[in-house]
């Protein structure tokens, strides 16, 4: 036990004293602080410009449009100009001047009204995303309606208030509010994905490099292999978790400091319920250890650090698939794939967390999944230490997994 602690301490310090670890953490934290401070910076330096441009309705366009009314008395040009919201809309007399203005770029577009329900849209170039006629068409149609209702002797405002009755809705969520949880669940899942993939590689490389520089032979004779692999995995886990925690804490503090400038706009991200955080910690930690054990064992199967990436490819592919299933499952937490994945040890740590956070899941399901994951993680730890012990002194070509299992379960080992 004492040796486990010594190995653990040594491995953690390997990370904490590693320059790239320190620099990467500092850069991420720095970017977060800057990102969180952008609204404050904007308010401090650009506040006056922003407000004057803001306007009251929030929607103001300084674009100019022109139209010609060839429908005569049947169409009310004044009403059209009054209700047009796309910018400045002026009336032209002749088609030539209108087309000229459009061709010169003075006008965004021109409209030639031929009847109350027909018009020509005159533009310079037809672009894929030309939207200049949307605002016009809305106003055009409303003008037609108004005059129509007027001719029937009905007050248009009355009809309007009937059609667009101001209905108010309040949602009472009995289960989980997926919409609000989406962002923080995504951030947590992605953070977990990122930490596992990075630290998995690091642990595998660290094991392989001890083989390639032959420190292994001295290590294995100095202490039990269990201490070595467990110390390494726990060391990597603590380094990764503390880095993630530091990043999250930095983001939260930076947000708190800039909260007024954000106008509380990100409260929903940082307002994660404790129960969700708890399940994230439990599933995340076990899944993290589970994968680190696998990465560590795979690292022991190669003799050179260059071979590590080839050796860990299968588990990386599985891991990326797990991430994809979980993220897709966030759109539909009741999907069968996600449900199945939430019990399979390879994916349950992520999939079950998504279900807990965004879907509805019973306590016994969570407990069962956690139990399966715990048992498998313990088993994987045991298996990893066996593979590690066996792999540590096999030099030469990378060992195939099938051979490993053959050797593990043959007599004598």
């Amino acid at each position, binding site marked *: 036990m004492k040796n486990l602690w010594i190995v653990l301490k040594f491995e953690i310090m390997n990370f904490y004293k590693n320059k790239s670890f320190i620099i990467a953490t500092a850069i991420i934290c720095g970017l977060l602080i800057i990102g969180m401070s952008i609204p404050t910076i904007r308010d401090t330096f650009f506040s006056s410009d922003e407000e004057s441009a803001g306007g009251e309705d929030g929607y103001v366009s300084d674009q100019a449009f022109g139209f010609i009314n060839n429908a005569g008395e049947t169409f009310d040009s004044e009403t059209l100009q009054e209700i047009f919201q796309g910018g400045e809309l002026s009336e032209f007399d002749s088609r030539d001047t209108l087309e000229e203005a459009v061709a010169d770029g003075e006008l965004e577009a021109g409209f030639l009204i031929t009847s109350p329900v027909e018009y020509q849209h005159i533009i310079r170039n037809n672009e894929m995303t030309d939207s200049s006629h949307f605002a016009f068409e809305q106003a055009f149609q409303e003008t037609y309606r108004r005059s129509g209702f007027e001719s029937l002797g009905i007050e248009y405002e009355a009809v309007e208030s009937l059609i667009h009755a101001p209905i108010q809705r309040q949602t009472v969520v009995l289960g989980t509010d997926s919409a609000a949880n989406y962002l923080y669940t995504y951030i947590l899942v992605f953070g977990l994905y990122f930490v596992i993939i990075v630290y998995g590689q690091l642990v595998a490389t660290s094991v392989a490099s001890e083989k390639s*520089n032959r420190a292994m032979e001295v290590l294995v004779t100095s202490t039990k292999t269990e201490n070595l692999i467990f110390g390494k995995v726990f060391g990597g886990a603590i380094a990764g978790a503390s880095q993630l925690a530091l990043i999250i804490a930095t983001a939260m503090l930076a947000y708190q400091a800039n909260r007024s400038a954000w106008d509380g706009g990100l409260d929903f991200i940082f307002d994660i319920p404790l129960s969700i955080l708890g399940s994230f910690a439990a599933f995340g930690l076990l899944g993290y250890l589970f994968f680190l054990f696998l990465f560590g064992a795979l690292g022991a199967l190669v003799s050179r650090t260059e071979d590590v990436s080839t050796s860990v490819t299968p588990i990386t592919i599985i891991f990326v698939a797990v991430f994809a299933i979980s993220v897709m499952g966030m759109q539909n937490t009741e999907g069968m794939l996600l449900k199945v994945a939430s019990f399979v040890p390879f994916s349950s740590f992520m999939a079950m967390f998504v279900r807990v956070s965004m879907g509805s899941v019973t306590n016994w399901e969570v407990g069962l999944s956690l139990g399966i994951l715990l048992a498998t993680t313990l088993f994987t730890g045991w298996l990893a230490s066996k593979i590690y012990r066996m792999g540590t002194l096999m030099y030469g070509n990378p060992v195939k997994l099938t051979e490993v299992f053959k050797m593990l379960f043959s007599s004598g080992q």
Partner: protein
Amino acid sequence: MHLEIKNLYKSFGDTQVLHGISFEVESGKALGFLGRNGAGKTTTLRILMNLFKQNQGEILLDGKPFKVQEHQIGYLPEERGLYPKKKVIEQLVYFGELRGLGRKKAKENADIWLERLGVTQYRNKKLESLSKGNQQKVQLAETFICDPEIVVLDEPFSGLDPVNAQILKDIIREQIEKKKLVIFSSHQMGYIEEFCKDIALIHHGKVVLQGNLKDIKGNYGMNRLTLKDGKRSMEELKQLLQGEMSSMLQSVETAKEQLIIELQPGRDKREFLQRALDLDLDIEGFGLYEPTLEDIFVEKAGDIA
């Protein structure tokens, strides 16, 4: 302490590497473990260190199964292994702690050994920045840091210049004086002759010769004499002896500056000398032949394989 290695067998795949290796070592004595490249020395030592599992055979310490973890062992592996990117002192302390020293004591011992081996100035340098010989010395400091009761050194002299080899010889001598149990392998006979009372010579995975070095040399010298003549060349002398004294001689060989003569069983040196004087030889040198370890080694393990 009395360490017995009994009948070790080991194969890797279809290749049988050890065919029943047995030998014994005692505290206060050094066993020289000899053999050519690929003879099985390192495999035997790795089995002793529990790095490999033997297919058959056992290792006993004072009659009980030997468990590596229960003893302080200083092990210098054949392929040196430390962390190239870590500072010298950091890794020495780490290994010291792993082998049961407290942090303070590990630091103290590390400094003592770095001083002793003359590499104190590299204490806070990364290992990879040191020369090969100095890295070897750091590895030796790591081996002795926990004041081991059993010392297992696999080719400890390879890579050391004569001055450093002398330092290591002094250390090994000191370990023997301190009644440590020392096993070291080498194919450099000179070192083994210097301080090993016992040897075990293995060849193709078998012990072909073992025991007290003096006795072995004596046995090898038995009934062999050396002879040098002032007037005749070696070849003339050889022919003369083979012609005149064939009934008495088993074999006559030319060595560097003398003939090595093996007598027929039952004949003794006085009889031989009498006859030699009768032949009117101008005897410049006559004596008992004492083989070097190298001679024995070449004879026992000299086949080309």
